[in-house]
């Protein structure tokens, strides 16, 4: 239930982020017992690189606290969509915070907004939509994969945000978003292999007063076809962009400063000794600097945004 609003203490059933290090964190469910593969109820023990955690012990603990592991410690954090995106079980490729932030901003999602999303995928983006539109808006999210839709529905319930979302198992490219949603949406988001097929449905689903549209596509050809379709239907402000976030890894670098002046002096025994000394007691200079990691995300997808202007007749 830990996704509804900021809270101070871990309650039973919360998803909790067990933060070990920048590169190691886990989302765990704060339940004292779990059912194993044999169907037996056993104590919930979570294994990490720093040893095991008896999950029962963290219930009632304040978020932000340090908890002891059998071979070290970790911090327990309340999950945010950002932390969830880094720890969630991948059922599909997911979209990450930099792209998502741009999507939320460009779709102008705020409390009260009605948003349509397809596909639901692993629910990474859905959690951001829900944070942005609750408690007065609603998310309609569609996936053509039945198991994924079911998993997402279950997850939203366990995360305490089910009131603000309806999950549909439906092939929107062929069947559209259902007539009930015609003219209801402030924003439509598509992450589909053939977004162009769903554009006419998005057109229908957006409010008569207009709305915003976004399609996320890994390949440029998908964006090209999507834009052709958008143009045909009268969308404007069509913009395609990419956001690439770089980590700046902060570190202190130590550089030797070499002395070449002493070479101008004849190498008598004294100067030789002095030179030796210069070499051994080499001066160094320290720099606080940062650089990108050796490998960066080079591409996630092209984001295509568009506006449906108000009062376009929808035949």
């Amino acid at each position, binding site marked *: 239930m830990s996704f509804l609003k900021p809270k101070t203490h871990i309650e039973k059933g919360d998803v909790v982020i067990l933060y070990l290090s920048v590169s190691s964190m886990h989302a765990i469910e704060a339940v004292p017992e779990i059912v194993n593969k044999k169907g037996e109820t056993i104590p919930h023990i979570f294994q990490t690189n720093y040893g095991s955690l008896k999950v029962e012990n963290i219930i009632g603990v304040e978020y932000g606290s340090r908890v002891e592991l059998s071979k070290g410690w970790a911090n327990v*954090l309340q999950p945010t969509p950002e932390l969830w995106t880094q720890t969630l079980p991948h059922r599909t490729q997911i979209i990450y915070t930099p792209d998502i932030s741009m999507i939320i*901003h460009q779709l102008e999602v705020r409390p009260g907004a009605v948003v349509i999303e397809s596909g639901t995928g692993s629910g990474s983006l859905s959690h951001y939509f829900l944070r942005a539109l609750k408690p007065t808006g609603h998310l309609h999210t569609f996936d053509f994969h039945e198991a994924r839709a079911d998993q997402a529905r279950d997850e939203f319930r366990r995360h305490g945000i089910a009131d603000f979302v309806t999950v549909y198992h439906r092939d929107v490219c062929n069947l559209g978003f259902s007539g009930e949603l015609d003219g209801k949406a402030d924003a439509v988001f598509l992450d589909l292999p053939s977004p162009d097929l769903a554009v006419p449905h998005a057109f229908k689903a957006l409010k008569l*007063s207009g709305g915003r549209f976004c399609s996320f596509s890994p390949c440029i050809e998908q964006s090209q076809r999507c834009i052709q379709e958008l143009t045909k239907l009268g969308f404007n402000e069509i913009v395609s962009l990419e956001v*690439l976030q770089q980590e700046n890894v902060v570190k202190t670098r130590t550089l030797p400063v070499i002395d070449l002046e002493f070479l101008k002096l004849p190498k008598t025994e004294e100067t030789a000794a002095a030179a030796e000394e210069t070499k051994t007691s080499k001066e160094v200079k320290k720099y606080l600097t940062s650089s990108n990691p050796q490998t960066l995300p080079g591409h996630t997808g092209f984001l*295509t945004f568009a506006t449906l*202007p108000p009062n376009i007749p929808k035949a």
Partner: protein
Amino acid sequence: MATEESTPRIQLGDYIVIQRQKYTKLQKFGSLDTTATLGKETLELKSLLDQPYGSTFKMCVKETKPGKRGAQRQHTLELCSETELRSTREVLGISSSGADNRDIRDDGEAQTLKPEDIAQLREEGNDSSKIIEKLVENSKTFHNRTEYSQEKYLLKKEKKYFEFVQIRQPTIRLMLDIFYRQDSEKVMGIRVDTLSQIISYSGVCGFGSYLLYESGTNGILPAAMLNSIGAGTEGTLVHMHPGNVPQKQSLLALKLPLEQQQRCVSVNLYSVLRVFYQGEEAKTIDLPPVEPSEEQAQELLTDTLAEEQPEAIEPITKKPKLEEVKSGREGAKGPPRWHLENKRATALMNAGFDSLVLAPKEHPTSILQALLPLVKPSRPIVVFSTCRELLQETFMELKTSGKVTGLHLTSNWLRTYQILPNRTHPEVNMSGNSGYLLTGYTLR
């Protein structure tokens, strides 16, 4: 589920976004006599009143006045239909185009129409499509150009002679675009990707209490946060600033409901910290709540209206009972508004915040030292700066302190694309600086 809404209509007192092709401008529609200036065109706005937002208007030349830089044309605006907006290309029905530009010699004499002739055409009230048609007719090289080159030419001309404007309701997205394009300094260099990530990483939403310190972004930061807090929710924002008056243009332009506006408490950093540290007594001494700051002096807005309607945005006490008890000994006239604001802010400060956003022009260390203790554990913090070296230092300080975990120093590349049939490529110019974000989570 929301029902079909009627489109909101343009009212006096509204801030409006005027769009002419890709150019957009934020303008206050203060009175029926208000005019807006777009380059050499002056627009009389009165016919906008009560028209729906999103409408397109045709600029109709009323008179031409001599100006400092050539003639300034005064226009009235006439509401027009969507069908009037056909592609100039279609209108002209251009078909013949050369295969490449090998036969073109640019001798500067390709156009036989004289500037005087063109001015004449404009004053006669010709459509842009008519003017462009004439230009094409009188161009010696147009029909030898490649299709690509023809299109470029037409777009250039259309941009110059385009006679339609659209009136839109300001949103965070539209305003940030305007400010950043006009002068990124207006928003302290906070680019669209960066603002979107400040909103994400701070976790600001309809629940919780948020703390912001910023040195002046024309109100875009508090406006974006309050926008994410939403109407009819329980979220609150304490907006600390270094000056006499907060920069609030963007907040005013959003035209938020009063109850929502009231959940943004804007206070001077020094003044509120004094009250917070020393309690009520402190106030009797320091009357003006200010430590003057540079930001005040160099007011960046040309048409700034931050102080024009303070009534609408100045928060009114939300819990009158508590306020009355606390400020009972203040005398009949009641305490000054800034004083009440300080009190509301200190109450929220004592309760603790659900995240902290800093966008200072000053060195962030001392500000972090003062504000970080006000943030609850397991809550996000976000520090923005355009200076990487500064945040590297802050990163190390926070890391050493052990008070914040999950520290990341990030920046972004933002690349826009031209996607057109057979002419797809990244835009040839890109913005060079996203600024830097330092993010992390507080620990207990």
